[in-house]
């Protein structure tokens, strides 16, 4: 028990680190005038969902089943009954912490779609309501005792359905209501700091080992399988994305490498304990190529998903979840199932598709309705003028970069004419 607890504690910390990693992955992709807002949307999700999860979210996901739809929010209200040093912490406090990190990053993932334009307060309201109405119940559907998707026999080891399809679909629903950024797609909105993007992708990958291998809830062979497949599929996805770029655009790009890594991580998430190496390679390579193609859809269909949350997370999540119906195998010794290619027939494939489509539709609809609600109440977007000038200044009264101090800035609340001292000149230089 101590070994398992140690690994789950470590994994929880790793999964928390994914959200700052995501913040930099996204933050590098926006323009320099909105990087702080992007970081803040991710950090805001940590603060907000962290509180909601401990107070009632965990209970809504893992409390006593109510109709297969959600858990009783009062069972473990404020971690009551589980806040004890006795018993197995991987079924108590550490479980709450570990799963809380999943809730946090799922909400943070959506932020990439609404970059540059969503009011910070409205984002937090959206995050809180979407977490309550969508993530907490869907986590119950997939992983809670009695949840209808889990009962149906759908496989989702670490969150392909509950996290990635869910967040990607919410992103689509929200941007359809929010609308395009001023100037999109006519004006160039190229990434302002690709090294941030690569750094963020690296942190995400590192943290993802906790996400996937931690979901074994034990320091055992299942964790080992999940860990190894998280390497294999991710590497294959990076190669797939780069190969497609090389053929289609002429060059393999650093943004493509970072995006391929994330696409592979997303796709292997539901499958990581249920496939062998060949399955992991197939899922990774297909995800890398399909996601690289899918990020172009927004230009054809006209929705402004700023940082391709739909193209990477919804599509990547669908690839992993649906491909499990083909390449899942019990040969690896985990309690998964056999897919179509491993003699299991089409039954598992059907189950996977139903679970994916159900979560996708539910999340799109609720996210769009929440977006509409915000639009007519608090206002979902900053004004066009604020958006053009930069959301960092409008929403946070800060600017990200001032390398040489050339932007100026004196204390506005201090009357400098009556305050002595503070001279930048060294005392010795005075005559």
């Amino acid at each position, binding site marked *: 028990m101590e070994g398992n607890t140690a690994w789950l504690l470590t994994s929880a910390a790793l999964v928390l680190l994914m959200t700052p990693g995501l913040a930099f992955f996204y933050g590098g992709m926006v323009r320099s005038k909105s990087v702080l807002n992007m970081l803040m949307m991710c950090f805001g999700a940590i603060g907000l969902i962290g509180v909601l999860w401990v107070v009632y979210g965990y209970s809504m996901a893992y409390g006593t089943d109510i109709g297969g739809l959600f858990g009783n929010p009062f069972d473990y209200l404020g971690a009551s009954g589980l806040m004890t040093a006795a018993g197995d912490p991987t079924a108590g406090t550490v479980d709450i912490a570990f799963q809380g990190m999943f809730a946090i990053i799922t909400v943070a993932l959506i932020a990439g779609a609404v970059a540059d334009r969503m009011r910070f307060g409205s984002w937090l309201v959206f995050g809180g309501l979407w977490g309550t109405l969508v993530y907490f119940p869907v986590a119950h559907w997939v992983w809670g005792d009695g949840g209808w998707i889990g009962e149906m026999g759908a496989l989702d080891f670490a969150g392909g359905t509950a996290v990635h399809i869910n967040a990607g679909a919410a992103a689509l629903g929200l941007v359809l209501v929010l609308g395009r950024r001023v100037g999109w797609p006519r004006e*160039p909105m*190229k*990434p302002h700091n690709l090294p941030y993007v690569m750094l963020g992708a690296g942190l995400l990958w590192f943290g993802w080992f906790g996400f996937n291998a931690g979901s074994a809830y034990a320091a055992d062979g299942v964790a080992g399988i999940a860990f190894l497949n998280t390497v294999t599929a991710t590497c294959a996805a990076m190669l797939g994305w780069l190969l497609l*770029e090389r053929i289609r*655009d002429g060059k393999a790009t650093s*943004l493509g490498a970072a995006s391929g890594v994330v696409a592979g991580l997303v796709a292997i998430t539901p499958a990581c304990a249920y496939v062998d190496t060949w399955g992991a390679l197939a899922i990774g390579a297909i995800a890398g190529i399909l996601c*690289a193609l899918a*990020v172009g859809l927004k230009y054809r269909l006209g929705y402004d998903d700023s940082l391709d949350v739909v193209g990477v997370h919804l599509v990547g999540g669908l690839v992993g979840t649906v491909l499990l119906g083909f390449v899942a195998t019990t040969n690896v010794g985990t309690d998964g199932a056999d897919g179509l290619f491993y003699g299991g027939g089409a039954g598992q494939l059907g189950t996977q598709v139903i679970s994916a489509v159900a979560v996708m539709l539910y999340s799109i609809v609720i996210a769009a309705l929440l977006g509409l609600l915000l639009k007519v109440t608090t206002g979902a977007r900053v004004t066009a003028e604020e958006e053009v000038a930069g959301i960092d200044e409008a929403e946070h009264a800060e600017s990200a970069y001032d390398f040489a101090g050339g932007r100026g800035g004196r204390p506005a609340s201090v009357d400098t004419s009556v305050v002595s001292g503070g001279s930048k000149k060294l005392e010795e230089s005075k005559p």
Partner: protein
Amino acid sequence: MKLITAIVKPFTLDDIRAALEQLGVLGMTVSEVQGYGRQKGHTEVYRGAEYAVDFVAKLRVEVVTDDANVEKVIDAIVGSAHTGKIGDGKVWVTPVDTVIRVRTGERGADAL
């Protein structure tokens, strides 16, 4: 006195600095700038979306010098910055009324 302003390819800076040092030029100002002339911009691709980047990264080198040294300084900069390919840059000369050294208050050629 004259202000000599040169817009050059960034990688030529080391050669320019060395050549000017040989002439006894004691200071210069270098800044990162963007622009275009005959050499138009280039294309960048992000997640498959092409962007036409109109402005090319260049360095602006500024040197103030005595009238007597103007031709030598120009030759040193042009000689070091020349590659013969499009985009080598421009050099222009403007008259300067005076120069003041902030630390001592010296004026004119003494301040160079």
